[in-house]
Every structure is written in structure tokens, then in C-alpha cells.
């Protein structure tokens, strides 16, 4: 069994708790931590001609912002933690893309934060945590 843990990470409070939990678990198990951030994106949405023209530049900006504001600080904060950390930055459907990251890295555990959607909107649209709990190929820990 591989010793990798994938953490689905964003700028929410729950994600920060999940990070703390994941780090302590990785330390205890001597596991590697893969921190993944997914930028929500559907190739089937509709764009105006101007949006299409600027999309390439926008994408680069978005990637840079996510890297600078989110992933780089996390890597820095974990430099001295003794845990091996790598980061993944991807576009796509959040749950599906996290599953792809699990498969690619061969991880054996997924940790995510529970985002605070209301019960109603979760019922209607489903939640990322909910769909991952059902669809992930590895055990999932949902941190409140």
C-alpha cells in the first residue's frame, strides 16, 4: 500500500482544519502529503467572443493567483514540519478532478474539509464532500 494522502484544499476554514488534521496524520504514518487545489471549470459553459479572446490570459492569471495566494504559503508553512509535501493545481469538476489526482498519485487516503453549504442547497445540487464520499476509490475523511 502506497503511503500518500491527498488533501483537497481551498481557502475555506474547513480546509484549514483539514490541513492540520492531514499534517498530523501524515506525520504519524510517515506518509507523503499531496495538496490539491481544483479551479472549477466546465468545457461546456458558454462564453462571449471577448471572454474567449481573453481566456488564455485569464487562465494564466488564475493559475498564478492560486499558486501565489494558496499553495505557495501552505508549502512554506510546512517546510519545517518534516512531512514531504507536493502540490497539484488543476482545472475541472472538483470531485472528478480530485479522484483523478488520487488515481495518478496512487494515494490511499483522501482528506477534505466540509464546506458550509446549507442543507437545502446540498440537497439540490449535491456537495463536493458528499459526492466524493460516494465516488472516491479510497477511504475519505471529511473534516468539519
Amino acid at each position, binding site marked *: 500500500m502506497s503511503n500518500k494522502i491527498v488533501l483537497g484544499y481551498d481557502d475555506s476554514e474547513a480546509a484549514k482544519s483539514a490541513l492540520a488534521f492531514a499534517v498530523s496524520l501524515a506525520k504519524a504514518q510517515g506518509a507523503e502529503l499531496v495538496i490539491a487545489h481544483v479551479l472549477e*471549470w466546465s468545457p461546456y459553459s458558454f*462564453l*462571449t467572443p471577448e471572454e*474567449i479572446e*481573453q481566456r*488564455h490570459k485569464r487562465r*494564466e492569471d488564475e493559475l498564478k493567483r492560486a499558486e501565489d495566494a494558496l499553495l505557495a504559503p501552505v508549502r512554506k508553512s510546512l517546510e519545517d514540519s518534516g512531512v514531504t509535501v507536493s502540490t497539484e493545481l*488543476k482545472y475541472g469538476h472538483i470531485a472528478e478532478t480530485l479522484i*483523478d489526482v488520487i488515481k495518478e498519485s496512487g494515494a490511499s487516503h483522501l482528506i477534505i474539509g466540509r464546506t458550509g453549504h446549507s442543507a437545502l442547497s446540498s440537497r439540490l445540487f449535491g456537495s463536493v464532500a458528499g459526492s466524493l464520499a460516494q465516488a472516491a476509490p479510497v477511504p475519505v475523511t471529511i473534516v468539519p
Partner: protein
Amino acid sequence: MRKSIKAAALSAPLLLAATAPAMAQSVDERVNELFASSTGWFVNLIFSPFPGTSFPWIVAWLVIAATVFTIYFGLIQFRAFPHSIALVKGDYADPNDAGEVSHFQALATALSGTVGLGNIAGVAVAVGIGGPGATFWMILAGLMGMASKFTECTLGVKYRNEFADGHVSGGPMYYMTKGFAERGLPMGKFLAVMFSVFCILGALGGGNMFQANQAHAQISGVVGAYPGWITGVVFAAVVFAVIVGGLKSIARVTEKVVPFMGIMYVAAALVILGMNADKIGWAFGQIFEGAFTGLGIAGGMVGALIQGFKRAAFSNEAGVGSAAIAHSAVRTKEPITEGFVSLLEPFIDTVVICTMTALVIIITGQLIQDPNTGLYLLDEGASTIQTIDGNKGVALTSAAFSSAFGWFKYVLALAVILFAFSTMISWSYYGLKAWTFLFGEGQTTELVFKVIFCIFVVIGAAANLGPVIDFSDAAIFAMAVVNIIALYFLMPIVKKELNSYMSRLKSGEIKKYS
């Protein structure tokens, strides 16, 4: 040409100043007169027939081009059709490129620029003048046009300009300059300037005035007659808010609603066809018979053919060059893939949607036939077919759909307004690209064009259908004159791209990701 724009632009402040309803009617008439007299010569030049015949040379020009591309690329529109679908589905999309514009998005955006009044009003005009037989020629033109679109969109991507800040500008004016220079051909710059001038006129005509005009016809058909300039001012204000004010939310809502409107339109047409399933065979019979005999329409078979080809070209814009502008902003490693995707456009636009409109008009019996001879009865001017209630243009389509569902005219009115609006937004972009090619990129030059564009919305809504539709056609076909010359010279480059891509696809170098 410059002069005509100036004359028309000068009349705009007059229009805006007119507020008293009593005055409005005379303002409409004046705009109309001025417009018809200042653009007549241009229309006559483009649509002049071959000496001694009634066949306009421009129609032959488009059809010959589409035939040449179809043969030169070995029936590419049928050969590459399955691969085009696979590309749009994203089968060949590299997951690492996620976040870039997908082929589906490029197609959807380009379609929302072409699917519109051409499919609703244009088809009604074609069938109203050319009879059911026009449908046959329209479908044929649509199928052939797929090869033209493939050629121009591949070149559009290949020769686009990428600016330092990451934004891209592309289109015929760029492949004319860069492609011609690469092949050591002269006149590239000249063609590019010509194309840009016509593109600006086309944007103001078919991409703007025709839309405003038919949107007004549709609204006044529902709420009752009122002066056109009122619709014009309202439309102009909304267009202004989007293209000058950067109100993206409106554009975004439109872009989202338009595809659903399109699907709903086709669904409604299918339901009506289903309700009249017993007549479908008869309708196709009329289409085929009319295609070769004209069934008594003015101009006979040639009349049906001209109308069919004209309206198909006006609706799917194949060979015109506008789609090359729309598709060129897409990121792709292989320019040819964008060509494959774009060939679906004339198929969806003309072969599917336009045919639906024509079938519904024919099947619901809007065109009056002589019960004894089966020939269509002409109206007094002997130029158009008599219809129930004398409807023409978008009103004819509306009457056809409403004969099945009384409430559909309200849905159609909404669809027309939204289609008109999304087409205007797309064409404002095409016009702007031509404008910045001529006058340089920059906020002030862009603003000048955008303001002119909004003024023409008002003029279009106030003028009569006749002169507006003539000028719109003429300007858009003038783009095709220049564009197709360039395509002939540059088509070997497309062939090279095609051969290289196809061999790599066969060898497995280009592979599916899903």
C-alpha cells in the same frame, strides 16, 4: 461607401431628437428614403446578374467556391464529420489544457453569432419568394458551405496575431497579410483592407440593422404598430451598455439563453412536424419538385435556386470570413482542429435549423397554392408568393408556428429579440476586429466604432425591410468576394495541414484522451 455611412450617420441625431409621435412616422420615412437612395448603387453592383441572364454573379461565386473546396479537400465535410463530433465532445482534449477555451465553447459562441434571424426571417424570405424549392438549394448550399468554413477557420487560427498581453486577434485580414507574405504573393495588404472595410459595413448591415429591423417587426407584430426608432433607441441603449459599458452580465445571460432558445425552436418545429407527420412526404415532394420547376414562382427554378443559395449564405456565413474571426481566438496546438469543428456550423445552422423553419412554413400551408394547378399564386407585384394574411419575413414564420400553437408567437418574439441581440454582440466584435486592423488597437478608436455601431441600431429599426435587407446582403457578400479570393490562394496551406494531421491521426501520434 464612406459617403453613404456619413449620410446615414448624420441623420441619426435627427432621429434621436424626434420625440413627438406625430413626427416619428415622417422621420422613419425620411431615414428610409435617404438610406435606400444612398446605398442603391452598391446593392446593384453586388447583385448584378450575368449579362443576358437573371443569375447574380455573386451567387455563382459562392457556390463555385464551396464546390472547389469540397472537391479540393475530398469531401472533407463528410469524411471529417465523425472526427469533428469527437473533437467537440472533448475526446482529444488534453486534460492538462483544462481551463482553456474548449472546442465546444468555440463552436457554441460562433453558433450564437450565426444562428439567429437568418434561420427564422431569412428562410421565410427565401421560401416566400423562391417557393418550397428554395429549401433544396438552401440545404445543398449548407452542405457545400461546410468546406468553405473549414478552409477559412483553419487559416484564421493559423495566422492570428498574438499580442504581448496574451490577447489574440485573428480573421481573414490577418491570413491575407501574413499568409500572402509567407507565400510571396502580392496584394495581401490590399485584400485585407478591402475585407476590413466590407466587414465593417457587413457588421453595420446584416449584423446590426437587419437584426434591429426584424426585432422591431416582431415586437410590433405582438404589441401593435409603433414607430421603429423607439425599438432602435432601446436596443441601442442595451447594446451600448454591453459593448461600451462592459456590462458583461447581460451578454452572459444572452449567451446562456440563446442556445436553449435554439433547442426550443427546433423542438417546437419537430412537434409541429410530428403533428403533421402525414404531410412530411408531401412537403419534401414540394421541395424537390419546386427545386427543379419552381412550381410557378417568379423566376422559376433559377429563382428558387438564387433565393436558396442567398439565404443559406446569409444564414451560415460560410465563405464570408466572419467565422474565421470568431474561431481564431481559440487555443489549439493544431489549427486544423478548429477547421473541423467549424464545419459543423453550417450543418447545424442551415441543414438542421433552416430546414425546420422551411418545413414548418410549407407544412402549415402558409403559401397559397392554386387548388387546380398546384402552382403557387403570386401577389400583385408578381415577385412574392401570396401568403395567408400577406405575411412576409419573420411574420411568416411566426404565423406558421402560431397556426399550431397560438402562444408560440410570444416565444418566437422573445427568441427573435434574443437572437437579434446575440448576433449584434457577435458582429460588433467582428466589426471591431476589422476596425482595429484598419485604425490600430486602442481604446479611443474602439470607442468610436462602438458608438457608430449603436447609432446604426436606431437606423436599422426605423428603416423598411426592403432597403435594409438589400444593403445587409450586399455588404456581407462583398466580404465573401474578397475572402474567397484569399482562400483560393491559401488553400494549399490548409491541405498541407490536413495531410499532416490526418497522417498523425492514423499513426496514433494524435491520440484520444478519453
